[in-house]
């Protein structure tokens, strides 16, 4: 579903601030793969997601989604086949617009927008049902401005918007990191539910080793802009935090020492 070949990305090339963010990334995601992507700060996880989504251009390499080379496509054009949820709950929704208006924007992702009325009565019924499935009491607040919702509610709404039109690829960029543990758990459960129900091809970045091990059918670890571990199948199922840390040490030649990952 997603194919990445020899991807390279440098920030500020040719200056003293030059930083190699991605080096020779190669990745093949099969349809229905649910990959958890883990790594320390500055490992390149978010950069990789942003390159796939088209936020950043790449220096060299190829990104293809469902067989189509999208390397040169702009961000909004790729959005037609990609659903995204960001780390910052404020980022994924328009705060001055209502819940239903935000959903209506997402409902038209990848379609041509015309001078038809921006939201139809039939859609409202769909939104009400879907919002009900979140069990956050949002189904009776269709007109409420999203700015009035809590971080967790906004993140759940963003998730719903990302899957409203079935995406060929779902990108979750540490989407629970900014939430309190209880809300994070709830949003994670919802994500798992939507991914399983829709058999969505998903790439989820996380800082949390436990989450990375528990969720998904494949785990990828990044370090210094490279993919250093790729664990799948039965091996993934048997994985423990200790085992993962040992394997990290072997693969990178360093001891795993990122507080944020270890403590979470």
């Amino acid at each position, binding site marked *: 579903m997603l194919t990445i070949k020899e991807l390279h990305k440098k920030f500020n090339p040719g200056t003293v601030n030059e930083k190699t963010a991605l080096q020779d990334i190669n990745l093949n995601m099969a349809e229905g793969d649910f990959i958890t992507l883990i790594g320390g700060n500055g490992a390149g996880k978010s950069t990789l997601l942003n390159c796939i989504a088209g936020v950043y251009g790449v220096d060299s390499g190829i990104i293809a989604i469902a067989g189509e080379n999208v390397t040169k496509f702009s961000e*909004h054009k790729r*959005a037609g086949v990609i659903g995204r949820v960001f780390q910052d709950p404020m980022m*994924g929704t328009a705060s001055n617009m209502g819940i239903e208006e935000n959903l209506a924007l997402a409902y038209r992702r990848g379609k041509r927008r015309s001078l038809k009325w921006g939201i139809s009565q039939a859609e409202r019924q769909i939104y009400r049902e879907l919002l009900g499935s979140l069990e956050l009491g949002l189904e009776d607040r269709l007109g409420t401005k999203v700015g009035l919702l809590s971080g967790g509610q906004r993140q759940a709404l963003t998730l719903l*918007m990302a899957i409203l039109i079935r995406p060929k690829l779902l990108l979750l960029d540490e989407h629970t990191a900014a939430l309190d543990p209880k809300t994070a758990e709830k949003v994670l459960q919802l994500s798992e539910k939507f991914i399983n129900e829709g058999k969505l091809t998903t790439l989820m970045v996380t800082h949390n080793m436990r989450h990375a091990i528990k969720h998904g059918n494949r785990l990828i670890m990044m370090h210094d802009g490279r993919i250093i571990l790729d664990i799948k199948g039965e091996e993934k199922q048997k994985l423990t935090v200790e085992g993962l840390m040992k394997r990290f040490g072997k693969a990178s030649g360093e001891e795993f020492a990122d507080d944020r990952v270890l403590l979470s």
Partner: protein
Amino acid sequence: MLQIILGAVSLGLLWAVMTMGVYITYRILNIADLSVEGSIAMGAAIGAQCIMRGMNPYAATAMAFVGGMLAGLATGILHTRLKIPALLSGILTMIALYSVNLRILGKANISLLRMDTVYTVFENFGLNKSSAVITLGLLCVLGLVGLLYWFFGTEIGCAIRATGNNPQMARAQGIDTGNMIILGLVISNGMVALSGALIAQSQSFADVQMGIGSIVIGLASVIIGEVLFGKRNFFNRLIALVLGAITYRIIIALVLRMGMPASDLKLFTAMTVAIALSLPVFRSYLKPLQRSKKGEM
């Protein structure tokens, strides 16, 4: 006195068209677009020159609208395609338009005295000039309120609003934010130029200088409207804009009548806007005081 108020209302209605244009960029797109300073004078210049050349005044006014849209297109391309910051793009268009407007006018100003204008039809029904301006102004404003209310409820209109509110989210939902910004600027500047053409015909002359300070007047009207007449929903906001523009004109007429020299007008307007924009800061100081008075906390 009544004459002064009527004059202020008629002028306010014409400026309300411009205010709605400023609202589209300032509030919906979240851009302070300075090109309106040039496009209002451009609208006046195109309207006046076309009428002088014998064109039907309504067609001349439509030409002004198209001219303004082109000005907005220029700013939009500078900003979204050439990646020049929005404020600077507006300034560049504004300065460029000064020369363009002089070319259109051929000299610093054109008089429209004794020429047929868009108001002549209404004057032929026996209305005096001021009532004719109010009648047409009202028709124009109500028509535009309806049109804008409809447009910003459509799929494209919603996409423009999302772009101004959260461009990152808009792109993630497949919206071409660059095109939406251009479209917003085109509509906004078209309306501003339309307003310029209507104003020029009501005052019977077009002047290359008439745009100076207009962005501040537009902002003042937007803010007065929001503070005094509310912003509950979009329709309410649009009406508030119109009332804000009229209120601004009445305030100006009154302070002039109270003896303020006309040359101080721009200072007065700038101060009004500065105070209105800083209101949230003052409020945040006042809030704790009010709460402790009520015995909360």
